[in-house]
């Protein structure tokens, strides 16, 4: 039995689950295990309520256009809960469609404007007959960490002033192919277009999210050992 336990909310995990994004949860479990913590996953789907106080960490992946459109409608009913979760400084990872839906809106495959919840200050445009596809490397200026991933997106996302990029593009396209930024960080919410998946290739990020979740939940515990966990390169 692990000493600590963490509850993960997998937002719309039965509808938004493309590109092996579930690997992020597997990576979180894997590293949580090494940090003496057990991670329990609950899928929160359409027509189900999201209680932010029941969860310590969240994952919000991307999906097919059709499913994302359905989620766009449903997520409006969960806006307050997600907003509280994020503003409570709880760690969340949002990939691709999840990233877009936390922002103001994105433009769908047929040019239609699809609403996000606008909790984060970014918006997403489309591009005609083109996708940003390929390996990508970025560098986070604050930590100096390099992140490796695979991008595959039509959307061109522009982040707001309250957000930091997840990293500066070293090679690849990034958020929009223009400003050389990739992803977004707002409080403890990490957004990215990275597949690969991001946490299986970049364990440091998984470790950071888990530590934050542990400190939030167990403010008086000593996590020195957990902080010293060595993340071996996997890519």
């Amino acid at each position, binding site marked *: 039995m692990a000493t600590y336990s963490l509850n993960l909310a*997998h937002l719309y*995990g*039965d*509808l938004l*689950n*493309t*590109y*092996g*994004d*579930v*690997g992020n949860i*597997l*990576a979180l*479990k*894997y590293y949580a295990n090494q940090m003496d913590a057990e991670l329990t996953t609950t*899928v929160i*789907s*359409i*027509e189900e309520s999201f209680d932010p106080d029941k969860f310590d960490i969240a994952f919000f992946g991307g999906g*097919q*256009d*059709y*499913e994302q459109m*359905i989620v766009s409608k449903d997520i409006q009913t969960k806006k307050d809960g997600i907003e509280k979760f994020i503003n409570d400084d709880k760690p969340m990872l949002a990939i691709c469609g999840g990233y877009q839906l936390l922002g103001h809106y994105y433009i769908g495959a047929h040019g239609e404007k699809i609403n996000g919840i606008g909790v984060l200050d970014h918006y997403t445009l489309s591009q005609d007959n083109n996708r940003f*596809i*390929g*390996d990508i490397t970025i560098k986070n200026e604050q930590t100096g960490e390099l992140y490796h991933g*695979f991008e*595959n997106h039509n959307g061109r996302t522009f982040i707001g002033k309250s957000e930091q990029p997840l990293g500066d593009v070293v090679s690849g396209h990034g958020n929009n192919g223009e400003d050389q930024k990739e992803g977004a960080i707002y409080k403890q919410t990490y957004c990215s277009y990275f*597949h*690969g*998946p991001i946490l*299986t*290739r970049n364990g440091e990020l998984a470790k950071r999210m888990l530590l934050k979740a542990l400190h939030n939940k167990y403010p008086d515990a000593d996590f020195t050992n957990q902080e010293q966990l060595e993340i071996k390169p*996997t*890519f």
Partner: protein
Amino acid sequence: MSIRSTVAAAAGKSSYWFLHTFLHGGSSLPGKITTAIDPNILNAFGKKYDVVIITGTNGKTLTTALSVRVLQQKYDSVLTNPTGSNMEQGIVTTFITAHKSKRGKTLAILEVDEANVVKVTKYITPIAFVFTNLFRDQMDRYGEIYTTYDKILAGVKLAPDATIIANGDEQIFNSRELPNPIIYYGFNHELAKDVKAPANTDGLLCPKCNHILHYGFITYANLGDYFCPHCGFRRPTLNYQVNKLIAQTPTSSTFEIDHHEFTVQIGGLYNVYNALAAYALGRFLDVSAEQIQTAFAADKKVFGRQEVIDVDGKKVTLILVKNPVGLNQVLDMILTDKDPFSFVALLNANYADGIDTSWIWDGNFEKLQQHDIPAFMTGGERYKDITFRLKVAGVDDPVIEPDLTKAIDKIKDLPTEKVYILATYTAVLQLRKQLADKGYIKEGMEA
């Protein structure tokens, strides 16, 4: 045939002879030459053949191979395209290199890539379509399942009288109103309960009301006896059904369709679906259940995407994997093996493999813990990705060999007599080349 078509076919045919004889190849170039001279060449062929088109994400090759065998019970000759030549040019090549039939129309059973269905039906009106399934495929190359289905339907639209023989357990094939006559096949081997699919499954929305589908039972992935508790949408009545699964091993499956017992010499539940599709097509074309039993029982190997190779006494099974659903089905299949085996996973990320390796995380490698597997090995250009995937699934110290030219020696050192190798497309090709160079197999891609 018009003069132009005849000239075109002759030019294509001689180029095939040249390529085949001197270069040991030639499946799409002759088609290119022929269509360059006569773009409407397929039209001319279409008049000489009754054509059946088999399409879908997984199972095209095996369904086609079994269907040919079934229909050979009734027809003197059945034309089909060689594995992999399922795009427009390969299909043209198939027709121009066919032996001429003396009497009337011949049957042609064609495996056609999803996006190429319309390129064929533009010229040829088939008598039937067979739909296997639609799964998430290599997403850097293909779109989403709805887009893929639209592409298939663009082809179907040109043949509104052709009968569709569709997998009834796949909800997307029941999502549109079509003018075509439709026959459904599926499974009815379990008592219906009320279950939901695991979260990491594709295509779970009710096409009528966009709520999450429930199932009486699930066979695999999102296939099964689906129903929508919200609006009442449900699986259509099945015309042909597997009513019992009797025995499954990695190399054989025994089951009942419509209460007739069948055995095919290939493992995997997904291949039972392929046999069922071939059965449905056979029955549609008036082949009897008894004839189909004979066809399935024929002691001939059916090549799907796997082959067994003897490597100095080791029984090495090489299996092509290309997408998560196929991968999970292969894992299920090899876990039916009662003997100890070693497990090898080879991952490349070239265009033909899919350049995005994320999909391996949708594979349920955690299942391997159910089996006592003495040795694991990983390799290929993306050995780091697959090694970490296995590590997360509980496999600690696999033998790692990035260089596939050295892989065979490592495989020989594995402690078990049986070895299963799961490999992506170019990894299969590279390994087969090594096996051929060392004399374990003949050159050329069988699967």
